């Protein structure tokens, strides 16, 4: 009998083909596992290609004083102490080797005059630390990894959305979903699964994130029983485009400030003097984002509600060489020549620090056989991520997750096997939007969700607003039971949106529940009703887990740092 789905089997299944997924696939393959790599877009379109500024790694090429210890201290301070110090230590130590490795695979970063890797300054990094390829570092990184993946014998499955993790009792057994092209169902049997599915910025209206960032992986992990952590920590990047409306939220790279860009309010004041006179424009993202927000709130915003960011004093040659994408972006999308005029910018949702809780060295989640790396995993960045730390995160922890997933898979005595009931159940859920003649429009619901998130879980939060937001999300979840899709299963974006929306609603519930619990302000989480840091909360991470079909919120102690690492922070404070 012909199966009603296409089936594949691998030792390791990697979900997501951004930086973390590609790096994990290479590592798992090198460890001897058979590897399948699944992505929602075509290969090479993952959100990592949007990473512009660079990779943070303490090579010390430009500032020889730099070291892993300083990178460690900067990252811990940026995360305001609730990061997992064990992840940060591994990260700071291994990032340089991951950068050099990319060059051995054919990548090439911008050079110093004597031919070594050039490094640029970035927000809250003590030294010049970001290795970059102009302002399209992510694109070069992805291309390099991708060519390596294809060559190393990894099977790539493009334009497939996986919507459910399959389990055999407690253990992971694979994943199930559909082909975007024709709606045909696909089942992957796997001994281990690496989630590298990125973030969920699309739950907000104004975001730098691409369409893919709907948090499928994180929501699937939650549904499979994994624990989530730090979900209240959503990063607002200080500089997104504000005009024209169609491009609102698109990123203006921090490299503009790294290369000397100056922020001014509508009165022409360099307002960062009032918020962080020492680091100025290169303060950490949470601080700069709040500063712009405040300037606008207090009536000193630009015509479209932002601030001016000016790089024109560096001259056209420099700008076109170091920031070619920004130059093009403003010229093409906004009719603005940034070599002559300032850009108009405002905060935009950019990154989620929270996600699936993982074991620091391996990426193992609380579900046996399920690993996570990159933005979908929590712990490295704490309450605020530093610019440039994401790309090195992908490489360092992508590699580790791939290796450990392979080791786990190859060490299993018996292959796990999921019963067909799980796939059948998921198929029924996926098919539901076609079974009714009237119902909710998924785009309408998504827009309403984005409105709630922006209003109630935005840059400035209050207990009342959060409580109201949670109720609204729960109401939207009810309505999402009645989603309807027209047309067929053939490349049908409206139908795809239906399942994505359920994932997003789950994660938004987690964001609200976590944000309500953390009654203090720390990093990206700014509570107007609790404006100060509370040392008690500095020792706790908020965690979320499903129990008996309900979302349960709790806390876990932040792992205490050993004395020799704690001293690194004091030394540089």
């Amino acid at each position, binding site marked *: 009998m012909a199966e009603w789905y296409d089936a594949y089997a691998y030792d390791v299944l990697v979900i997501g083909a951004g930086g973390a997924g590609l790096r994990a696939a290479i590592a798992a393959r090198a460890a001897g596992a058979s590897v399948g790599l699944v992505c929602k877009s075509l290969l090479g379109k993952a959100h990592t*290609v949007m990473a512009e500024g660079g990779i943070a790694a303490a090579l010390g090429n430009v500032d020889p004083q730099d070291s892993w210890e300083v990178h460690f201290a900067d990252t811990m301070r940026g995360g305001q102490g609730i990061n997992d110090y064990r992840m940060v230590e591994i990260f700071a130590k291994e990032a340089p080797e991951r950068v050099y490795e990319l060059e*051995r695979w054919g990548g090439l970063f911008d050079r110093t005059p004597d031919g070594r890797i050039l490094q640029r300054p970035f927000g809250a990094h003590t030294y010049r630390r970001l290795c970059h390829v102009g302002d399209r570092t992510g694109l070069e990184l992805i291309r390099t990894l991708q060519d390596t993946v294809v060559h190393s014998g990894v099977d790539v499955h493009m334009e497939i959305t996986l919507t459910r993790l399959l389990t055999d009792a407690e253990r992971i057994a694979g994943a199930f979903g559909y082909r975007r092209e024709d709606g045909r169902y696909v089942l992957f049997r796997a001994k281990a699964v690496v989630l590298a599915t990125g973030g969920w910025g699309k739950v907000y209206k104004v975001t730098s994130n691409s369409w893919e960032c709907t948090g499928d992986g994180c929501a699937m992990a939650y549904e499979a029983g994994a624990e989530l952590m730090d979900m209240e920590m959503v990063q607002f990047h200080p500089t997104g485009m504000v005009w024209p*409306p169609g491009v609102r939220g698109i990123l203006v790279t921090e490299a503009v400030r790294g290369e000397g860009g100056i922020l001014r309010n509508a009165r022409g004041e360099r307002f960062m003097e009032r918020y962080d006179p020492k680091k100025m424009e290169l303060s950490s993202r949470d601080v700069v984002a709040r500063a712009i927000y405040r300037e606008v709130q207090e009536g000193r915003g630009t015509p479209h509600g932002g601030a001016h960011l000016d790089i024109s004093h560096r001259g056209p040659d420099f700008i076109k060489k170091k920031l070619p994408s920004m130059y093009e972006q403003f010229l093409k999308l906004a009719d603005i020549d940034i070599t002559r005029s300032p850009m108009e910018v405002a905060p935009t949702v950019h990154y989620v620090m929270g996600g699936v809780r993982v074991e620091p060295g391996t990426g193992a989640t609380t579900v046996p056989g399920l690993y996570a790396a990159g933005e979908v995993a929590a712990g490295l960045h704490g309450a605020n991520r530093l610019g440039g730390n994401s790309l090195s995160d992908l490489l360092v922890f992508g590699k580790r997750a791939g290796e450990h997933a392979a080791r786990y898979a190859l060490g299993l005595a018996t292959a796990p096997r999921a019963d067909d009931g799980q796939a059948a159940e998921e198929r029924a859920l996926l098919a539901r939007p076609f079974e009714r003649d009237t119902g909710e429009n998924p785009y309408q619901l998504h827009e309403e969700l984005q409105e709630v998130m922006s209003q109630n879980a935005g840059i400035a939060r209050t207990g009342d607003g959060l409580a109201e937001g949670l109720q609204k999300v729960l109401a939207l979840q009810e309505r999402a039971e009645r989603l309807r899709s027209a047309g067929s299963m053939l490349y049908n974006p409206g139908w795809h949106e239906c399942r994505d929306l359920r994932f997003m609603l789950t994660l938004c519930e987690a964001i609200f529940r976590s944000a309500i619990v953390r009654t203090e302000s720390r990093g990206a989480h700014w509570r107007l009703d609790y404006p100060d840091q509370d040392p008690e909360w500095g020792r706790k991470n908020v965690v979320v887990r499903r129990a008996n079909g309900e979302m349960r919120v709790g806390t876990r102690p932040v792992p205490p740092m050993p004395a020799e690492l704690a001293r690194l922070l004091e030394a540089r404070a």
Partner: protein
Amino acid sequence: MIFRVKRFDPTCDRRPSWRAYTVDVRPKMSVLDGLFWILEHADSTLSFRYSCRAGMCGSCAMVVNGREALACRLRLAHVAAPVHVEPLRSLPVIKDLVVDMTPFFEKYRAVDPFYRAEDPAVTGPAAAPAVVRPESRELVDLQLGCISCGACYSACPVVALNPEFLGPAALNRAYVLSADEREPAAGDRAAAILGDGGVHACHAVGNCVAACPVGINPLLSIQLLRKGATDR
């Protein structure tokens, strides 16, 4: 503003047909914004690819008023009404504006885009980081940054006539690798570059140069590869 979109659903249509939509235009709207408007207000089954909205990912290449463009980067103020939107050429249509990119990717792979200078299986202590003088990179740097959108492939008249031709994007990649001073051997690449589908099949029409949304000049790469072959 009137949008005419070439629609095709292989499950029920025998051939593609144009369908018209009146799009509510707001300031500085792009072609992609217009397609979103149709999706959200007129027909939720319209299929097209997109991802980043910022011209970085290369998902939304299509043919607008007869020319290849990234829909997210092309603003309605710069196109004549009615706007005719159709899928990329020389690639099979899956549905509406979505094409099957397999031939494009297969040809990219045919030039053996894998960098050989170092075996990735070796993950031991790092070899000494390469010293590469910035001045040696000036031309290569201009040809980097391909977003594999397929616009050049669609615009190339040789691709349309000669299915063997690898096309501008793949050959540009081959040039970038061959021009990398760190890369020792051309490997299998030379056979593909100089074979029937390689640089000698190019007629130097130059549509690829005009079509590239990120300013790469694939024709120049092809010519440099040819010159290199002659020199050798």
